[in-house]
């Protein structure tokens, strides 16, 4: 059907006055929302970065300070002082620091049962020190007394190496965070040996 120029102009004018469809409006809103969400996420992540950095520095310092303190102790007493069991504490039961510790400035994770941010994991919870336990993170089973054998006896009194894991878990500004420090202490060459 042929339209006169006047009719075509009227049709064009009618279309231009129709505005946007509902789908167009919804897509626009969706794109705008996505852009706003991305911008706010970036800003939030940026704002949490310094807090996360400070928290991690505190966790590293706390774990390193504890490790330094272990170096100051007589090597043969470290297991009895820092295992989970209070029975074998050198002075009297319940007097040793034990496996859990606090770091000023860090808050324990909400799911943490003992309420401390830090924990030392030793080859066994005590009072017996076993070298045949299975623990990949500590490199067990392993010969702890230097007799070249892995046996089932208690080595709490004659260990020569002591693998340990210091774990710091805290409720950070960006959620639950964990820092782990794994090392092996040796009594060989120490002043007290």
């Amino acid at each position, binding site marked *: 059907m042929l339209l006169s120029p006047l009719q075509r102009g009227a049709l064009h004018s009618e279309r231009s006055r129709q505005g946007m469809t509902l789908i167009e409006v919804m897509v626009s809103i969706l794109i705008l929302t996505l852009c706003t969400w991305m911008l706010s996420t970036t800003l939030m992540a940026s704002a949490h970065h310094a807090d996360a950095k400070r928290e991690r*520095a505190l966790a590293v310092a706390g774990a390193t*300070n504890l490790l330094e303190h272990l170096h100051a*102790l007589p090597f043969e007493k470290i297991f009895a002082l820092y295992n989970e069991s209070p029975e074998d504490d050198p002075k009297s039961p319940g007097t040793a620091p034990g496996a859990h510790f606090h770091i000023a400035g860090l808050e324990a994770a909400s799911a943490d049962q003992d309420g401390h941010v830090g924990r030392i994991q030793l080859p066994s919870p005590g009072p017996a020190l076993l070298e045949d336990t299975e623990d990949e993170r500590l490199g067990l089973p392993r010969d702890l007394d230097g007799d070249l054998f892995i046996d089932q006896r208690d080595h709490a009194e004659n260990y020569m190496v002591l693998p340990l894991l210091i774990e710091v878990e805290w409720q950070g500004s960006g959620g639950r965070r964990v820092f782990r420090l794994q090392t092996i202490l040796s009594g060989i060459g120490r002043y007290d040996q």
Partner: protein
Amino acid sequence: MSVSRAGFTLVELMVAITIFGLVSANMMMVSKTGASAIKSEAFRSTLEDEANLTSTRIRRALLSASADSLDPVIQAPLGSDHLQYQMTLGANEEGKTIYGDPERIHWAADPDGRGRVLWTTSPALDDERTLVWSSAIPNLAQGELANGIDDNENLLTDETGLAFAVHDQEGLEREVEVYLTVLRIDPNGKPAPSQRRILVTCRN
């Protein structure tokens, strides 16, 4: 005959301008807040870096120090704003220990009321050399007031922004406890401190 004219009515135009104005104002507010947050974030990040770097330098220096060479050996609640030490280099043919040149980590006041952490090798000798490890150390540690009381409960009284205490207990190796406060003024003009506690057992 009436001719249809495309375009906006005055009401449409005003509504559009109002919405555009509101959206623009919001966007400006968001970008201003974002810029401020990024500026603040950069400042705090730099502050934490400075505290970390300075504490790492102190820790590394004291790790290789000879426990017998520490001077002064001051225990809590007293503290010292300086510590001198020597590294053990080995032993001579007679079995005597050979020490390196004396080194000193100390706090020094600036004319503006703040202070610096300085590391000096061969202090008071001809080849004395000094490096600045940090230039934003206050004359009192974070939370501490000059009142003769341990306000920040770290067992030291009225300590400076850099404070050393030596733990010298029977049956234990000598440990050095260091408290470091780095203090700078943030972009909003407020003092922003960052504190570190460093514990080091001298290995030699």
